[in-house]
């Protein structure tokens, strides 16, 4: 089973980089431009892992995580926050909203995949 990863970022450059990195790593990728779009894709693509930016128009990352967490699901989908912010209070806010982990931009490809490996059941083991 190939992991389905949903990447949410308002920057097209970031989306392109994420999409390329994740595809090369062997994941199936869906992309969203902001929190609202992310929620729609979240419902639509039923991802195994979500990577989301924080600063976005319409609905920001915190809002997305809270809304995603309120969705009825048989399992809690891991959500990784990918952001340039590294302030502890923002991390705490992300955690409070329900984030599973965080990655600070600029991300390293290995690092990103490694982070996904740490939160996503890559299948078969459970």
């Amino acid at each position: 089973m190939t992991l389905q990863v949903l990447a949410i970022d308002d920057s097209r450059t970031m989306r392109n980089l994420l999409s390329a990195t994740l595809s090369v790593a062997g994941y199936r990728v869906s992309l969203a431009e902001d929190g609202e779009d992310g929620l729609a894709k979240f419902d639509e693509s039923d991802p195994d892992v979500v990577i989301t930016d924080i600063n976005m128009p319409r609905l920001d990352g915190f809002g997305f995580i809270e809304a995603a967490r309120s969705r009825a699901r048989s399992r809690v989908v891991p959500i990784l926050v990918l952001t340039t912010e590294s302030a502890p209070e923002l991390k705490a806010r992300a955690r409070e909203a329900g984030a599973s982990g965080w990655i600070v931009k600029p991300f390293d490809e290995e690092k990103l995949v490694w982070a996904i490996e740490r939160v996503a059941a890559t299948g078969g083991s459970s």
Partner: protein
Amino acid sequence: MTVDRDEFRESFFEECDELLEAMHDGFDRLSGQQDDEETMHAVFRAVHSIKGGAGAFGLNHLVRFAHHFETALDKVRSGKLDLDDELLDLFRQCGDNLSDLVGAAREGGDTPCPGTGTLNERLDDVLGTDGHVEDPEEPEFEPVVLDFGDFDLPGDDSGMSIRFTALPGLFKSGNDPVVLFAALEKLGTVEVTADLADIGDLDSLEPGVCAIRWTIDYSGNATEEEVREVFEFVEDLCTLEIEVKSPGLPDLDAEVPDLPADLLPSVASLDPVKADGATLDKGARPKERSGAKQDQDDRKPGGTIRVDLEKIDKLINLVGELVIKEAMLAQSIADLGPPSESEISVGFESLKALAGEIQEGVMAIRAQPVKPMFQRMARIVREAASATGKKVRFVTNGEYTEVDKTVVERLVDPLTHMIRNAVDHGLEKSEARVAAGKPAEGTVTLSAAHRSGRVMIDISDDGGGINRDRVRQIAVERGLINESDSLSPSEIENLLFLPGFSSASEVSELSGRGVGLDVVRSEIHRLGGRVSIQSDPGEGTTFSISLPLTLAVLEGMIIQVAGQTMVVPISAIQETLQPKSAAIHDIATGGRLVRNRDGLVPIIDVGEFFGFRSEPRDLDPHVLLLIESDDSHRYALVVDEIQDQRQVVIKSLETNYQQIDGIAAATILGDGRIALIIDPDNIVRGSGAKMAGDLNLQLAV
């Protein structure tokens, strides 16, 4: 597993352009409404996104400045700082500097621009920081390169005993101990033992709370730090104890060692149990990493695609051919002479309409809104205003007017020049304005619009207008006209376009860069455009530029000269004359002039110029095309007959043959014949020697 980020560089810079545009837009909006929160957020996000992307490409100078800038924007955004005119002005300058840094990075130099230092200091003043903004690039997660092949690491085959207890909230955060153990397994061999002692009755089980504790025996070459990193996301959601065993020692303490009493209340009754679900067997997990290719289609690039310009130009060329073939077919059908309502004629008409639409559509691909260029001009205005100490309001209209990409690019220099002129020479100093009963702040307006198949761009100021006496005086001093010449107001204004008009006494810090309006005009002419001036004393000056929508087709007049069919760009022709013998005057030096309303115009025979014939004595059966050349003088070109006026597709002659004097390009006519497109300016220059002497004469009459 590497992604070539260079591939994404260009698209990053394209996105930067959009973000910078959004940022500048935001500042424009904020200048009218400083408490517009939504706009402030948008500006912040734009700068923030540039920073994020720049980080991915290792553009450190850009990241650092963007970070500093963003920090200040964030203060305003979060209400910790009030936005006033002064701060907005600083932000605008920072925005300009950010554009510069992006530009420099795009050119391959991630270097600080000259203004960066000063702006950083001013940002520090605003922020109350001492110049040491914390490095935005200090990631909490240092990228770790996992090198499984290299076994001579210090922790070589070390063993660790890890005790892991999940706190409430771990599951809710989307983390899962099993996944963490699986990640740990990637670093070496793990044996997981679950302690089920705390699992109570079914009734007392809480779904969100994990009652199992684990002990993991790890052996591998990872360091303790690397192992801790696996649990990084849950460090606040678990208790983690790691005990490093000396390398090489046998795994004697495999059984649970020294468990605190409170963790294991009934050690005696419950032996550690190996729970199937928690035992991770190496190799038992299927790895499916081959699906990368089949999923490429899932990538959604958004609403635009990038296309090589060459492909578009090829398409434009092909459409040009299509239009030519269509014209040829039209001629053949006309020659056959079927009735106009015949099936073939009706079918052809709809084909023709379709071809026209395709042509328009293809041309539209190359069309771009002038907005980014206008934004560059906003900056020029700001810089010019601060250099001259004038207060200037910049107004733009029609910024979504679309113009051919090449035209937009080549307009930047002429427009920059004219905008600088408007601020520097056009607008008066504040005191003078107030004295004249005008607002102290001057206004420069840049507008674009489509009008009858052309693009019109106007640059106007509400300054004092052109001082005609002064212009006249300068022109006399420079020997461009004679003291006694009588010129109409518009002729005087057009003197500004003469080469050699602007010089030392005109040169100021700002506009005096050795480039005169003559250069502006010839560049616009090269684009197939025309420029004119309108000025009202005391009210201001407007420069109007008229440009073709595309450089691929040209509105041409089809003419006959000595049996040759040629094309003259309509944009060059001011009027056509049927010469009457009476209006033609011979002059002693051998040339001829035609009298037309307010002057005598030198005559040039196109046939003679190209060596088709010697100039005909009797001009009566001919036609004169009145053109205005780059140097503002008018000439009359002699042709034999005007046949038609229509769009022709421009085919470069230079790429296929070579540059020929007097010829701009070639085209293919409806009957399949090739016709040369005349470059009137070039003809005038080519036949210039004897005409030079005539110039003053023309003006003198």
